[in-house]
C-alpha cells in the first residue's frame, strides 16, 4: 500500500437499495493515484452497483464520491466521464451498427482530444486484441469475447486518468488475458489509475496492489491480495472453500 500517493477517488458511506434489497450499505474505499485496486466479492455483492453509483449511472441513496477532492455525486454520467473517470460495463454495451474502428474513434473524441498519436493507439489496441481484421465490420456481428474486447479497447485507447473496469476478462481467451494484464501494467506505469472488478483470482493477484472485498452489500475486507486470500471470511464468501484446503491462490 502506497500510503503516500494522493487519493484520486474517495468513496464514502455509499448506500443503495432497490425495493427493499440493500445492494450497498455504507461502502467506502479510496483509490490512490497510480494504483490498481481490485473490487471483488461473490455474485450479487454489490460491485456493479457501486460502479454505477460512482459513475453517475445510478443515484446512490447515501454517501459521497470525490474525484481529486471534488464532490461528483449527483453529476450526470457524461460529465463524470469527461472529467477523466471512465468505465466499462459488465453486460456488453456496444453500438451494434457502428464499426469497431468507429467505436474507438468515438471514444477518443468523447473522452480525450484526438492527437497525432491516436491513430497509432487505435492500431495498437486492435492488433493487441486481434481485432484488426474487424476494424470495418459492424460490432453487432462479433463474438461475445470480441465484443468485450472492443469495449475494453475503446476505454484504453482514450487513456483516461481513472479507468473502472467491470469484469473485463469474462469471456476473454486466456491468451488475450495475458495481453490485458500486460497492458494494464504498462498503462499503470504510465500514470493511469485502475479500479477492476474481477472474478479471476490470478489476475487480481497479479495486477492489483490492493483489494476491496464486498459481501452482501458491505465491505468485508480490504488489503493487498496476499493478505486478503488468507482471510477466512473471504475464503468463505468468495472462493467458496475452507482456508485449509488452499492450493492455488498463487
Amino acid at each position, binding site marked *: 500500500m502506497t500510503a503516500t500517493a494522493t487519493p484520486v477517488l474517495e468513496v464514502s458511506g455509499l448506500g443503495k437499495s432497490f425495493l427493499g434489497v440493500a445492494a450497498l450499505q455504507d461502502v467506502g474505499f479510496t483509490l490512490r493515484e497510480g494504483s490498481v485496486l481490485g473490487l471483488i466479492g461473490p455474485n450479487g455483492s454489490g460491485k456493479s452497483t457501486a460502479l454505477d453509483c460512482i459513475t453517475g*449511472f445510478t443515484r446512490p441513496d447515501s454517501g459521497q464520491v470525490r474525484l481529486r477532492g471534488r464532490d461528483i455525486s449527483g453529476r450526470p454520467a*457524461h460529465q463524470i*466521464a469527461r472529467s477523466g473517470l*471512465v468505465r466499462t460495463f459488465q453486460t456488453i*454495451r456496444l*453500438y451494434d*451498427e457502428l464499426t469497431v474502428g*468507429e467505436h474507438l474513434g468515438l471514444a477518443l473524441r*468523447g473522452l480525450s482530444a484526438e492527437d497525432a498519436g491516436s491513430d497509432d493507439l487505435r492500431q495498437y489496441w486492435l492488433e493487441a486484441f486481434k481485432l484488426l481484421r474487424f476494424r470495418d*465490420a459492424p460490432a453487432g456481428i462479433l463474438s461475445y469475447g470480441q465484443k468485450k474486447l472492443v469495449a475494453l479497447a475503446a476505454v484504453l485507447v482514450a487513456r483516461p486518468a481513472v479507468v473502472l473496469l467491470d469484469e473485463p476478462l469474462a469471456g476473454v481467451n486466456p491468451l488475450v488475458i495475458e495481453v490485458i494484464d500486460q497492458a494494464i501494467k504498462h498503462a499503470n506505469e504510465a500514470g493511469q489509475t485502475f479500479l477492476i472488478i474481477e472474478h479471476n483470482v490470478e489476475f487480481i493477484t497479479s495486477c492489483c496492489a490492493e483489494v476491496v472485498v464486498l459481501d452482501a452489500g458491505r465491505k468485508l475486507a480490504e488489503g493487498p491480495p496476499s493478505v486478503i486470500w488468507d482471510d477466512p471470511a473471504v475464503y468463505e464468501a468468495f472462493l467458496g472453500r475452507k482456508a485449509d484446503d488452499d492450493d492455488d491462490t498463487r
Partner: protein
Amino acid sequence: MSVMASSRRRVTGGLRALSPRPTTARRFGPWPVPIAFFVFVPLVLRNDYYIDVASVAMTFVVLGAAFNLLYGYVGLLSFAQVAFFGIGGYATAWLVTATGLWQPLAFLAGGLVAALAATVVGLVTVRLSEGAFAIITLSFTLLCAVVAAEWTSVTGGRQGIFGLPAPQFAIGAVELEAVSPSQYLWLLSGFTLAALWGMRRIVVSPVGKVLVAIRDNEALAKAQGYSTNRYKLAVFVASAFVTGIAGALHVFRLTAIDPSVFDFYLMQVMLIVVILGGAGTYWPVVVSAVAFAALPEFLRLADEARLVLYGVLLVVGLVFTPQGLGGTLKERAIRRRLRDLEEDS
C-alpha cells in the same frame, strides 16, 4: 497461430481495397446527382400538373430527410414533426397576413418559431424513454390541432388562414415573385437543396457518428462522455426548424392553412418514406420520398383503391425488404465485406 498473423495483412489490404477510391465521386460525394435533379426538374417541367407533383415530392424530401435525421439517426420517434410543420405554416401565414412582415423574414421566422417550440418540448422530453417521448410528442401534436382550432384571433380557428398571397421577395429594386407554379417550384427546389445539404453536413460530420451512437446505445455514449440529451435536443430543434420552413412553403403553395395540417396523414408519409427508404441511410430516403410522391400519379385509381394499393405496397415492401431500400443496400455491403474477409483468411 501463424496462419492468422500472415492472413491479417492480407485482410486489411482487402478491406482497404473495398473502401471507396478517392475519385471525383469521392470528392463531391453523390451531390452532382441531386443538384442536377433539383435544377433539371423546375427547368423542364412546364405542365402545371407535373409541377404540382414535383412540389409535393420536394416537400416530402425535406420532411423525410428531417424525420430521418431525428428517427433514423438519433432514434427519436417523434410524432411532433407534423406539429412543427403546422406551426411553421401558421406562424408564417399569420406574420404575412396580419403583420405584413417582409416575406423572407416571415419564412425564416416560421422555422424559428417551430424551432422555439421544439426547444420547449425537447427540453423536457428528450431525456425520457422512447414510449414517453412518442406519447408526449403525439399529444403535443393533437394539442396543437386543438389550439389551432381554438385560438381564433390568430389562427382563424377551424377556418384557418386562407387566401395567402404568392411568396414574393423584394430586395431593393429587385422584385422576385413566385406567382406561377413553376416560379414557386424554383423557390422550393432551392430550399430543398439547401436543407438537404445542411442535414447531410450534420450526418457526415463527426457529430453524425455520435448521433448513431446515441441511437444504438445511449448509456455507452454517456460513458464515453457525450452529453446525449444535448445532442438529441439539438437535432430535435434543427429538424423542427427545417420542417417549420417546409411547412411555411407548403402552406403558401396551397394558399390556405387550417387545423388539418396537423393530421396524421403527413406523419404517415414521413414514416413510410423513411422506413421504406431505410431509416438511418441518407440518399435512399430521398429517393424514396421522390418515389412516394410520384407513385400516386402513375396510379390513377379511385382514391380508396389507391390507398388500398399503397397499403399493399407497404406490407409487401416491408415483408420483402424489412430494412428498407437503404438498409438492404447496407446489409448487402456488409455481407460482401464478410465474404471477402472469409475468403481472405
